[in-house]
């Protein structure tokens, strides 16, 4: 456990050293510039649009961070040959994989926490001084705590994406890992189509195959409650919990396979 935590902290420190947190400056600038510009362009929809933009940017920045750092977690060590000194230490390869994963998850959590604060700050600025009659027309309050539900599910989704990237990086090149992770991210958001494939094909075999893929591939669409939250539609706690459990289960499976593959890998 201690070894895993040490690796996680080291990954986090490396992210700081690699100036990963610069993306936060970009995010903050984007949010601030948008808040000034959007009010001029949108006929009174600035709060909705800032929420959409903030959540989408959080998700997108997080996605790039998860994929591009995730794919390098293992391959970088191999490339630099530092893997030899790591595996020579009294830690199991499973601990190494888990530590790397937790480190990136920590980096992502820190990023998302700052992004959430920046988003709320911009929304507070927009809502400041707005008369009550105008606020009444908003689907949800500007500083709606429910935005955190969307943030939490984005985080859960990105944790799953990190696990995918890490899983692929244990046995393939960084480029291929990135392509496969992005591919699964896209497919994961269209899994509903796989479920209803029988509506567009006549072949029962194809329909059954698509249905099988629906269950096996990560269903990422369920993590997307951005629109619901922005429009003030309630997201039940039960839904959040089940989606969280799904993410945890899928991540555990990916990390288990990644550890297995990594422990069988020969670095000679």
């Amino acid at each position, binding site marked *: 456990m201690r070894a895993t935590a040490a690796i996680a902290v080291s990954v986090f420190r490396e992210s700081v050293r690699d100036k990963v947190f610069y993306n936060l400056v970009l995010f903050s600038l984007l949010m601030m510039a948008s808040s000034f510009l959007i009010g001029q362009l949108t006929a009174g929809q600035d709060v909705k649009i800032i929420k959409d933009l903030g959540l989408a940017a959080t998700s997108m920045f997080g996605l790039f961070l998860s994929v591009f750092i995730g794919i390098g977690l293992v391959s970088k060590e191999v490339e630099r040959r530092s893997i030899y000194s790591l595996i020579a230490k009294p830690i199991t390869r499973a601990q190494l994989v888990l530590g790397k994963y937790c480190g990136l998850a920590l980096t992502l959590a820190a990023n998302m926490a700052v992004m959430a604060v920046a988003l709320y700050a911009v929304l507070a600025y927009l809502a400041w001084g707005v008369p009550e009659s105008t606020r009444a027309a908003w689907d949800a309050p500007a500083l709606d705590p429910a935005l955190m539900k969307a943030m939490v599910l984005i985080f859960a989704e990105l944790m799953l994406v990190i696990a995918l990237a890490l899983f692929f990086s244990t046995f393939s090149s960084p480029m291929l890992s990135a392509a496969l992770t992005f591919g699964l991210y896209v497919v994961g958001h269209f899994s509903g189509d796989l479920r209803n494939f029988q509506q567009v094909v006549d072949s029962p075999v194809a329909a059954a195959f698509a249905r099988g893929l629906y269950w096996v591939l990560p269903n990422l669409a369920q993590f997307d409650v951005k629109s619901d939250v922005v*429009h003030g539609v309630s997201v039940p706690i039960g839904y959040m919990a089940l989606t969280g459990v799904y993410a945890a289960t899928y991540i555990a499976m990916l990390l288990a396979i990644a550890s297995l593959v990594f422990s069988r890998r020969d670095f000679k």
Partner: protein
Amino acid sequence: MLLAAAVQVQAARERVYPPGETTEDTVYIRSGSALRRLTGAYNALFADVYWIRAVQYYGGLKLQLDAKGAQPGMLEPPASIAADAFPALYPLLDITTTLDPRFNIAYRFGSVFLAEAYPRGANRPDLAIALLEKGLRERPDKWQYLQDIGFVYYWFRHDYKSASHWFQKAADVPGAPWFLRSLAATTLEQGGDRQASKAMWTTILQTAEVDWVRKDAERRLLQLQALDVIDALQRVVTDYSQRTGARADWPALVGAGLLRGVPLDPTGVPYTLSDGRVELSRSSSLWPPPEEPSAKGSPRP
């Protein structure tokens, strides 16, 4: 340094070879469903982009049409541009509301942009109703959409029976405000009557949630106020002409002591008097005045 040089070169090129006008109004992908697929988890963000495009397109084209000489106040579009006035407006709004089916303002403002008479809008009340009905399919509990359909029938189609029907439907939605029921009854009883219109716009003014709607209601009320003044002035002009046999103009009426000065509309612009008819000035921001139907309950063809 090199960036500054690049900027200078570009500016020089644009001076010699001016860039063509931007064709922002082109909607390359008209299928909202296709875009919904393409935008994946970012539907709402793209809906915002399309909404901004719709607002910019509407505002930009309105300015262009004014500049091209579409006379402000012309109630019907000239034949040359009637067919393609605001052609991309409905596709943009349709895409916006397909990408984000709960985009409340896109339905409510969009229907106004579509229904308004030329040159203030696309003069397409049919599309305004279609857009609001699309919103209702997504959110049948939105009494505001039912009310807005009633307004479109009332103001732009002068079909007071249908307007009353939609106001009644809005009133039947749980949580709808009390005034809708009386609005439905008044519309059926006195549709097209100026007092009924005043009552309706006063209600809208008092219940408006958005500044834009509030300002529009204020303007409509000023227009109706101006129409009352025009009616009174017209009586003075007609009396004077009949009594003296002379053509009336403002100085003559002031000289005869019938008026204290040249009458001004609520925005401070003088009314015009030509050929014995008193009208709002075309330079007034209240122009064009609302159409007032001659016969109650006769729908526009």
